[in-house]
């Protein structure tokens, strides 16, 4: 093994939703290991636990039990404020429906994460400089003063990616990033993610589209809250085996 930095590591990750005495196990002992620069897809049928897994990986929810180590820090038991800080510093989100603020320019949308950085204040001029650079990187330098409603779906998603990149996150989390786009725009977004991947960005996306998954290096298939198979790009699927955990823990 090369000495790659481990970005995501989960050990026996379990999530149980309890509602009125009825408990539903959404995740049942999931072990994942993702290294810096990897491009990973999570797939699974509805109810397989892929959204729950993504929420936990994205620090939006906490596991019921098990351990989640993000960039060397155990984040499984952090409180709301600490999780917010982790999300602000280490994560970048790409949503299916872009989630841009309406009637707000692309530039203002992109600089938003910097406003919530409590560790240091970024002056307005510097924020704008950074946001411009990010928009330039996603090919929207000429659209920075446009509001979301003046942009196409593909352009909006690129603004969202620029926003996800501005805090220099350790991992990009994508929840069906091409789900609302036509195939052409979807392909453009995937090419953009490919380009970021080549620049050593770590990317984890949830998708149900095999074409999207084909862009990634690895696809983790979930079934009933457990890892079913892991497909390495271009290779035949194989049944997930416990020994991969020891490889992960190594």
């Amino acid at each position, binding site marked *: 093994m090369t000495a790659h930095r481990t970005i995501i590591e989960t050990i026996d990750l379990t999530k149980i939703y309890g509602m009125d005495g009825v408990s539903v196990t959404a995740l049942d002992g999931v072990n994942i290991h993702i290294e810096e620069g990897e491009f990973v897809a999570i797939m699974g049928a509805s109810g397989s636990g892929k959204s729950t897994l993504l929420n936990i990986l994205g620090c939006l929810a906490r596991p019921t039990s098990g351990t989640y180590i993000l960039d060397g820090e155990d984040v499984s038991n952090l409180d709301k404020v600490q999780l917010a800080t982790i999300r602000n510093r280490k994560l970048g989100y790409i949503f299916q429906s872009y989630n841009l603020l309406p009637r707000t320019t692309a530039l203002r949308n992109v600089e938003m*994460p910097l406003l919530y950085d409590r560790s240091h204040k970024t002056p307005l001029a510097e924020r704008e400089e950074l946001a411009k650079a990010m928009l330039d990187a996603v090919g929207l330098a000429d659209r920075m003063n446009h509001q979301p409603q003046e942009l196409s779906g593909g352009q909006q998603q690129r603004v969202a990616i620029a926003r996800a990149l501005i805090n220099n996150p350790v991992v990009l989390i994508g929840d069906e990033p091409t789900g609302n786009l036509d195939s052409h725009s979807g392909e453009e977004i995937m090419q953009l993610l490919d380009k970021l991947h080549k620049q050593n960005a770590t990317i984890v996306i949830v998708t149900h589209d095999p074409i999207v998954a084909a862009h990634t290096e690895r696809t983790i298939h979930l079934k009933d809250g457990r890892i079913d198979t892991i497909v390495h790009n271009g290779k035949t699927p194989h049944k997930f085996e416990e020994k991969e955990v020891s490889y992960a823990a190594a």
Partner: protein
Amino acid sequence: MQPLELLRIAWEAILKNKVRSLLTMLGIIIGVGAVIIMIAISAGTEATISDQITSLGSNLIFVSSSFSRMGPGMASSGGLIYDDATAIAENITGVKGVVVEQDATETVKAGDVSLDSISISGISPDFLSVRDLTVASGRWLSEEDVTNKKKVAVLGSALATELFGTTDPIGQSFLVSNTRLTVIGVLAEKGTVGEVDYDSRMYIPISVMLQKFARTPFSRINGDSIRMIFVQIDPKANMDNVITQIQILLAKRHKVSLSSLDFTITTQQDIISTQESTTAAFRSLLAWVAGVSLIVGGIGIMNIMLVSVTERTREIGLRQSIGATPADIRWQFLSEALLLSLVGGLIGALVGVGGSYIFGAASSMRTVIVPSSILLAFCSAAAIGAFFGFYPANRAAKLDPIDALRHE
């Protein structure tokens, strides 16, 4: 998040929904405006009353008949009579002037001009100095005019113009009811003080008034009854002492005991304190009404903020996903509510000041803008914004990021 950024975000959110923001602020605008206008009106009323009291002259006491015990043979006295005033002037030490006033309203005719409901004051000559009036042309009523029951009159400036136009009114004669009077003087302009328009009334000797216009059926037996005697006291004299002397004198004259006087003596101070307690009650009533409208405005803000939180649930989820803490979200909505109420308060203050001014100019009511009322109204608006904004803001802060992001 930095306060300035919070304010910028709140300001942008308000601007994004201009009409709705304005409607939300309307409650606060009306509330703050109402507080300022109400306080201006009650301050104006107080000022009017105190002017009225000072316009009566200084160091005055008022002797007035108690409610009537009259009826033939029932009481030894018919209340205050004209001779009581003379007796006070002659017998009491420390009295500077005694004025008797009896009013009537009559139709006045001069040539082709006929005016209805003109106020006529029958007065004794001291009236001029006690009431602080100035004669512009001609002369004032004299002691002799009163004793000889001379049919003369001094006109207010406006009344003189109305009756005689550009002609010099001095020496002209005119009819009051069926009595012919001659103009001997015209007063300088004084304007309206309190409810009394000094310029459109006339002054005649009290003796003429009692004989011609204000005769009572018992005058022949009891003497001419009058409503009130104004006594101006020498500033160097002891007021309480003078009051006691008057009480003893009049009790003797009316043949009543000191414990059951048929007249009352009121000082200016008594009148001022009575008026003050009335206006205080008036003011607190107005303050309550205005306060209620402010609270209604606050509820309006809460209502819209709750709608706003629901509408912007996804925005809240997004902000949380990029690192906003519950406190950040709470401050965001709280500052929006605060800003709404502060801007509303500012507009309301302008409306209140402008409204007070217009109200005072357009109506007969006088308004005095009290600076502290602006501050009070503004601060209550801010407090209301914070109070009614807290619940919606807290609700936003408690949202779960996953649920918020999934919200449709």
